[in-house]
């Protein structure tokens, strides 16, 4: 969607046109879901965070200045929503974390591949949850949402150097943790 069309939809949404807001949602929901899923590690919570983010965006649409795309703006909101939720969340029982890893594999995978994939997904989720929140933010924006360092820095209100360093730290840790897992598996 080009910026002009997006602005037109934002203007209409500000006037209370829900169809316009729905179009904005449709354009951005896939990317927003990916960010929320990586942050939270479960489909169920990702859905909750996406709903909450759009709810907040709808309430605050009058304050959206257009200094970024709508998608970038609502991505910032969903990250804040995820951070708040993680801060409030008590420790979850291990069973619940395992449940989140168990997406139903699609039909083309063998049951064994599906099981390995689910286990790996659980390990990745668990490893990612160990990262400090600032490193999570950088990793999610750049590696999941595909933002450049410059875009991520703007989204987070940080310098590019800070964002680059946090991503480096996240990669270093994830490499180490996932490397240990691979050794266990093999």
């Amino acid at each position, binding site marked *: 969607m080009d910026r002009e069309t997006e602005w037109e939809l934002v203007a209409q949404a500000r006037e209370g046109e829900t169809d316009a807001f729905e179009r904005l949602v449709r354009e951005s929901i896939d990317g927003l879901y990916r960010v929320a899923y990586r942050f939270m590690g479960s*489909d169920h919570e990702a859905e909750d965070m996406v709903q909450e983010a759009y709810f907040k965006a709808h*309430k605050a649409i009058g304050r959206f200045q257009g200094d970024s795309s709508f998608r970038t703006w609502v991505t910032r909101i969903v990250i804040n929503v995820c951070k708040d939720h993680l801060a409030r*969340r008590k420790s979850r029982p291990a069973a619940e974390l395992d449940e989140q890893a168990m997406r*139903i594999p699609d039909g083309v995978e063998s049951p064994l591949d599906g099981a390995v994939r689910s286990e790996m997904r659980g390990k*990745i989720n668990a490893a990612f949850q160990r990262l400090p929140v600032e490193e999570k933010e950088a*990793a999610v924006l750049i590696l999941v949402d595909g933002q450049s360092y410059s875009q991520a820095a703007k989204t987070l209100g940080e310098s590019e150097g800070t964002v680059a360093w946090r991503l*480096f730290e996240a*990669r270093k840790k994830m490499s180490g943790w996932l490397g240990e897992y691979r050794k266990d598996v093999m």
Partner: protein
Amino acid sequence: MTMNDKEKTACGDWLPLLSKYCDDELTRGERERVDGHLAACLNCRNVLEQFRGASRSLALDVSMPAGRRERLIGLVMGRIGREREVRSAPDWSEWLRRIFSAPVLATAALLFFVMWRVERTDITGPGRLKIDSLMAAADERLLQSLSGAYGGQVAWIGIRDGDVRVGLPEDMPAEGVTVFGRDQYIRLVVELSPASPAASKPDVLRLMVREGAEASMIYAPDDRHRIRLACRAIRRGSEQTLEIRVTVLGQSELKTVLPLSSGDRRKAGEILMDGALYSVTVMSGNSITLAPDALRL
């Protein structure tokens, strides 16, 4: 990553550049330097591969599961639509006056339903509300709507100003309330049970109090009476107690402290109103069922 100390010292300065190399964020000059180093350093090539592997892992399987997209969009837009309805909801004091306009105090008993928080619940069965997802409420304002299904139709739950509402589809005969939250919330529900056969079915008032805080409300059963309910929930270790104060303004007051545990029904005491005694009963539980004809607004 596994490197010996010497290798770590030699290659350590290159690692941040390798991270940027993965993302094509180096300047041309930096890239040429890194290419030159990689050509000569097996360790750094291994590290680069590990960094790329970690990057791929984080992007693995993060997309929305098949078939969920439209449902999620529906939930998003449904919630926004409900919020617009709540914003145009009737004034609460007017609602109270409507509820209590009937002469119901002759021999009425006051029942307090104290609902302890639930983490997550499915209340299923004919005429029951099944909740699909829960979200924590941070305070008494309308923060979150929850989604669920009532008889297969979409319902919503909102929390506002200490009160909880569930919105059911328009063709449902009544609206009900329930409370869910991961934080320490207790919902105090007052049920006025008239003894007169001509009186309407019990009506319910709800007071929501956060653990450690006090909440209060005043309701007017009729033009001449005002009853104030105040409640404070206190936790000491694993025990929860409830301080309850019921005041018939200008007439009498009942103050009591009760232990709170799920499933209890306790008589808290009595208050005097216009020369008649009213018993005050506290009920606690960790779930509430909704039936269409139980609650009216």
